[in-house]
């Protein structure tokens, strides 16, 4: 087994997961709390330490000004994009934010950019995987919503780098889900993936053909998901409280977060119950109590869900398919647990959706499959190939503020386009190019990706230079640009000014800050964990020596075990976690037969009518003798 494993990561709006390929099956790696889902919540504790996941959730309510959730909504966005978000989410922007600067969010007295906050989540997932493997993890496949634009993708990649991860590929979430689905159901045909998550909606239509997963079309809305349902319910509750109880708690962060927790619980309950209750304690001894029926809930959220219809229709149109041609609709994302979402999908695609997959985990599992493919794969994956598309058209601004589309949406990536430019004035040495992403005719309605200055053009009469600019969208959906002046053969210089996002230098400095300590942290954590494991195994061995099985072992084997035991006791005192692990493994191997014998004894004893306690096992056979780990096959 190679030391370097590539993990698959689903960096979600609400929850994040890390998975890897165990043999032929992708599995999710749990956190140290034993749970697969790591809530995408980041908090700063009283000692200014970063807390991530379940442990960070309590800060949302206790010290909301020191915690942040749904940061994915801000990835790759500018201040002018997020006014709507700010009304609904308790994001606290840094006061000294300059126009054109990457957003910074306040946590306590500190400020962080969205990629840094995402990096904290990624670092947690990385640690979870490292604990699981007992080895460093440095490479990952990370999923993004299919409808993410270039800036949002770049921001995600930056987050990976900041967390000390080399991002080998960004995979679109619905496409990742289709990989997990395809691994399960080896069939050819057209499949739709309807992915309604915490903050984003994607629809992708794929053609599965002899293990090639070819995306035909994709569409979506990067600001549509469970969050919108929660916010609607919160707004209603706040209005109720103001109207009925005369209390304005809209600016009270703690109360708003308590209400948020309560409506989310009600939302989840309403997927299985006919009604749910909201019950929130308010300042001044007042209470907000309300019952909401499933019917009311469905009527309320219908306008939100209806926003998924147009993208679905557009995707089918772009793919050139009718609902009848689609063999299966796969549901992904926690919000697809809502019965009325399923009904809507059924109505739109005229078939019962496929709900066998765990909608929270399937994207991470698919990312693990893609990670496995990139590492060379095995029998089950080596023929699998993903052909994804760019979700948005790429254009350049031409005379009159018009967008000239040079790579159309739903083009298979990598995709490229070569454009030629010239000068308009004699002796002109610079040409400015404005790159856009979007479907609208006018440049001002599209998303500005970057402005390029083609520099160093040799002075020539107007119209004579011929500058060839190559635009290339790579397999991650990220744009690369290169240029050449053809008459002089000179490479034209390009100065890229991304409209949104961090510069390389900024990312670099962020990595250095967190990375140095992360390496040291990793080593220390590994030593502590290895020592703990050594303790467990040694004390289990002590107990085993009292069991009848010990006496059944040949003398030589008992001596050998004693030798290994002594070795482990010695290396345990040292600071080399790899040595400790090696020694643990050796002891594990050496005591295999002992473990088997003990299991047999336990079974025999049980058959004789004795209870496990009487057999003095110390451990029940289900837990197994801790010496016998499941690793041996």
């Amino acid at each position, binding site marked *: 087994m190679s030391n370097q494993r590539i993990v698959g990561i689903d960096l979600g709006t609400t929850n994040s997961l890390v998975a890897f390929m165990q043999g032929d099956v992708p599995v999710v790696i749990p956190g140290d709390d034993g749970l697969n889902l790591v809530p995408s919540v980041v908090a700063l504790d009283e000692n200014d330490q970063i807390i991530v996941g379940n442990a960070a959730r309590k800060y949302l309510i206790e010290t909301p000004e020191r915690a942040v959730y749904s940061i994915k909504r801000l990835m790759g966005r500018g201040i002018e994009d997020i006014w709507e978000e700010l009304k609904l989410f308790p994001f606290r922007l840094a006061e000294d934010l300059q126009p054109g600067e990457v957003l910074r969010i306040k946590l306590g007295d500190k400020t962080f950019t969205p990629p840094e906050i995402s990096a904290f989540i990624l670092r947690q997932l990385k640690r979870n995987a490292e604990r699981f493997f007992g080895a460093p993890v440095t490479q990952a496949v990370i999923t993004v919503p299919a409808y993410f634009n270039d800036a949002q993708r770049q921001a995600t990649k930056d987050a990976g780098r900041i967390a000390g991860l080399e991002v*080998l590929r960004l995979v679109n979430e619905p496409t990742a889900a289709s990989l997990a689905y395809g691994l399960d159901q080896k069939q050819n045909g057209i499949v739709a993936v309807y992915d309604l998550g915490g903050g984003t909606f994607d629809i992708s239509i794929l053609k599965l*053909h002899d293990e090639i997963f070819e995306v035909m079309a994709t569409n979506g809305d990067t600001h549509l998901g469970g969050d919108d349902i929660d916010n609607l319910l919160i707004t209603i509750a706040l209005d109720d409280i103001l109207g009925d109880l005369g209390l304005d708690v809209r600016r009270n962060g703690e109360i708003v977060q308590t209400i948020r927790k309560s409506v989310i619980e009600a939302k989840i309950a309403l997927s299985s119950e006919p009604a749910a209750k909201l019950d929130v304690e308010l300042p001044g001894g007042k209470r907000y109590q309300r019952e909401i029926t499933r019917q009311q809930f469905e009527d309320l959220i219908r306008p939100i869900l209806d926003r998924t219809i147009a993208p679905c229709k557009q995707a089918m149109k772009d793919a050139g398919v009718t609902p009848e041609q689609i063999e299966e609709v796969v549901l992904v994302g926690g919000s697809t647990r809502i019965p009325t979402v399923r009904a809507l999908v059924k109505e739109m695609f005229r078939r019962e959706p496929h709900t066998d997959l765990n909608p929270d985990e399937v994207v991470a599992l698919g990312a693990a499959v893609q990670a496995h493919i*990139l590492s060379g794969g095995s029998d089950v994956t080596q023929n699998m190939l993903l052909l994804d598309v760019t979700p948005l058209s790429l254009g350049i601004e031409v005379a009159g503020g*018009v967008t*000239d589309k040079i790579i159309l949406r739903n083009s298979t990536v*990598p995709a490229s*386009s070569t454009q030629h430019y010239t000068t308009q004035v004699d002796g002109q040495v610079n040409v400015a190019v404005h790159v856009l992403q979007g479907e609208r005719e006018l440049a001002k309605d599209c998303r500005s990706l970057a402005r390029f200055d083609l520099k160093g053009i040799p002075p020539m009469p107007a119209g004579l230079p011929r500058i060839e600019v190559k635009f290339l969208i790579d397999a991650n959906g990220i744009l690369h640009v290169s240029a050449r002046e053809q008459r002089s053969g000179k490479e034209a210089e390009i100065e890229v000014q991304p409209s949104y996002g961090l510069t390389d230098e900024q990312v670099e400095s962020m990595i250095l800050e967190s990375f140095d300590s992360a390496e040291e942290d990793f080593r220390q954590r590994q030593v502590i964990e290895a020592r703990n494991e050594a303790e467990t195994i040694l004390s289990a061995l002590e107990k085993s020596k009292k069991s009848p099985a010990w006496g059944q072992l040949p003398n030589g084997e008992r001596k050998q075990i004693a030798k290994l035991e002594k070795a482990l006791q010695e290396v345990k005192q040292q600071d080399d976690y790899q040595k400790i692990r090696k020694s643990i493994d050796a002891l594990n191997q050496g005591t295999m037969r002992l473990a088997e014998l003990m299991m047999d004894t336990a079974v025999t004893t049980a058959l004789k009518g004795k209870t496990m306690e009487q057999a003095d096992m110390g451990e029940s056979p289900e837990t197994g003798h801790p010496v016998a780990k499941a690793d041996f096959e």
Partner: protein
Amino acid sequence: MSAETNTATVEAAHACWSCGDMRAAHLCTSCGKVQPPTPVDYFTFFRLPRKLNLDTAALEREFYALSRKLHPDVYADRDSQEQEWSLEQSSRLNDAYRTLKDPIRRTEYLLKLEGVELEGQSKAATEEARKTGEKKQIVPPDLLEEVFELNMQLEELRASKKLGEEDSALVQELQTHKQSLGAKFSTLFNELKDYWSEWDSAEESDSEQERRRVRDRMVDLLNRRSYIGNLVRDVNEALGS
């Protein structure tokens, strides 16, 4: 082996960087390694003759087969030079496939190879052209009368809409126009297919004169087609559908 590849006219005759044998434009025919990109046209990339009738099912199979060999995923653990070539070659592959599988794009691409620049077809570009008076789209003569009438009706409809009225008779007439234009649009496609066969035989007999004749016919047809396409779009927009 090399004698065979030499006789194939579409084969670029270079030596593979890895094994020294002969190679195609993208992969070594001998050892299968990805090659540095060479500027070949899309037909050559797929090792196809420059013809317009094309077996799209076979093209798809070839696309899948080449994707398995050229896609960056396959090169994730190779050195950075091979990764870069794979990125460029697979983007060429995708660009070529996207262009050749679509009948209109394929025709336009071939005409471009033959030195024809077709007019921009986006609405904004058309309007910009109208405003500046450059490159005015020429109304096909047989459509003159219909276009004149249609434009009048569109103006009328826009005016009545501004007043908040809905002239149902006018809407009805525009619907009829739309249908007739739609029918013309599909007839043009069938005509285009006839030209394809004429082009392909001109290509086979290597007749420059015949090639030029068919080329001009196709240019004319595609311009008419885009003109009608723009009209349908205008009508749709005015009808608000």
